[in-house]
């Protein structure tokens, strides 16, 4: 129970801070219950940062990344799971072994590549490098191998369906549960990413929420209530998405550890 309280307390306190004035929190002893200044804090927040533009940047990045990852990874996973083709094992081995490379090793040249492509400061610089990932292919391949019956594929083949028709009409409906996990996982990761947007989004009016919030906090005389209103607004969508899908998500997320 204490563990739960410790886990959840910060969210409670974020709401407390976001609904009171900074003076109330600074006061001694501080206010421990919700106040009614949320709207004022939000208004201050909107004055200080382009909240909606940051929000829409974040949403665009997260949605595009997720859509591309789901499509590319499930397609590649289908090929790896249900077909034999020359060099398949080698290619899959490359994919698995490269998974351990941390992204920081690549970030300086990535920055240069974005400069050369003219993508620096655009959302493309965030979406494209993240559009296909090894973990997703591995995950989807495991699921496709076991959950798409070969008989079903054979039956569709007899009807004359080719690779892409099989993928679209047979595989996709079968792998939906695995796609749901991969989708939320990718969405959360893209929503929360910090170092890549920090490096790539050089344009101050084209930031994602995380970078914009961090910059808001950087000042010396931070208005905590205002910043907490921003934190609250940035956390709520994610917590909602998560709690909606929580059951399946948690079970799937632990699977990786137990394999």
């Amino acid at each position: 129970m204490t563990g739960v309280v410790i886990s959840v307390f910060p969210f409670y306190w974020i709401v407390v801070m976001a609904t009171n004035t900074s003076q109330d929190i600074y006061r001694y002893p501080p206010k421990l219950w919700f106040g009614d200044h949320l709207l004022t804090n939000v208004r201050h927040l909107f004055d200080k940062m382009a909240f909606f533009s940051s929000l829409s940047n974040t949403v665009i990045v997260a949605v595009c990344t997720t859509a591309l990852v789901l499509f590319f990874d499930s397609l590649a996973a289908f090929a790896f799971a249900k077909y034999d083709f020359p060099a398949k094992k080698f290619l899959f081995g490359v994919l698995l072994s490269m998974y351990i490379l941390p992204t920081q090793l690549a970030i300086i040249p990535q920055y240069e590549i974005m400069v050369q492509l003219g993508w620096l400061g655009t959302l493309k610089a965030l979406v494209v490098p993240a559009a296909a990932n090894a973990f997703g292919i591995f995950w989807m391949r495991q699921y496709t191998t076991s959950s798409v019956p070969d008989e079903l594929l054979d039956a569709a083949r007899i009807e004359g369906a080719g690779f892409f028709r099989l993928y679209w009409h047979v595989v996709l409906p079968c792998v939906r549960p695995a796609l749901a996990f991969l989708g939320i996982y990718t969405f959360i990761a893209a929503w929360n990413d910090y170092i890549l947007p920090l490096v790539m989004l050089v344009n101050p009016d084209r930031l994602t929420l995380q970078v914009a919030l961090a910059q808001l906090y950087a000042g010396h005389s931070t208005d905590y209530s205002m910043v907490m209103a921003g934190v609250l607004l940035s956390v709520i969508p994610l917590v909602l998405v998560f709690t909606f899908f929580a059951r399946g998500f948690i079970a799937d997320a632990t699977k990786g550890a137990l394999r």
Partner: protein
Amino acid sequence: MSSSPVAGPAPSGPASGSGTGPTGSPASDRDHGPGRRAPQIRPVSAGSRRGPRRRVARYWPQYLAISPYYVIFTVFMLFPVLYTVFLAFQKWDGIGDMHFVGFQQFRFLWDDPVFWLSVRNTLVIWVLSTVPMLCMALVLAVLVNSTKRLTAFYRVALFIPSITSLVAIAIFFGAVFSNNFGLINAVLRALHLSAVPWMSNEWTIKLVISALMTWQWTGYNAIIYLAGLQAIPSELYEAARVDGAGPVRIFRSITVPLLRPIILFTVVISTVTGMQSFTEPQVLFGSEAATNPNSGGPGQAGLTTLLYFYHQAFDNNDFGYGAAIVWAFFLFILLIVVVNWRLVQRKEPRP
């Protein structure tokens, strides 16, 4: 509760791909690799030269399907990683010409006190966060496992910190541990204790960052342990209880040994993520040289190696040195992971 995660549907291992190819030909599994033989349906003389290429052409949809990953991976990961090796031997500010300097960057790195300070900071923060995190997670998992009610709720509550953005958490910790107005100091004052200048003392800065990481990942690890606990057959516990073992004895002699592979997994994962701490100190203390010469906070106590890397590469535009730092650090993490692996592996239960 949902089905035990251990019994996942997925047969594992990269070598299990014995799916039915479109031809169903059993030869297709064998005949790639250097000692390739022409498919037997075709006359050897006619097809031996064009055979492989033909075969590749026949599989174009499969290659097309996997190509996005390899294209993206090659352009944005493989090439950059190799290029970082190249950069580590150059002096480059990102705009002017590169100058080859050989091992000079690494020699400088070896003598750079700030680099070693950052490595020490990273290690201290990692130990201060990982040890309590994993211990608490294990205890939490055992406790949740022993209750039968509300497990779904506990899971969600424990999992939520790990999906919350690090920036939001860092800002929250910054506010709560603030020297003058923070909640923690207010509580201390209410208890008639003296306030602690959390954000200006060398050790408390590390403590705050460690507490932040502990808060974020304890629940996640607890859930992983919980899943492992549920796979332990309850007969084992009953047998132990019949033999008169107390809860502590059961925990030490049954729970911990049987969870060992999972504990190993969490140790490795926590090492890899813990050593990469960057966002926490970056958000808490900023990194811009112009506004904050003491990157990483007072006394550079929160300057982790990745923050130092970011600082050198993107604030000072010393890309060559940044590349050297990040490669040296990657090798260092690998070393730590291997050492860790050995240590945890060695705790075999003696027969």
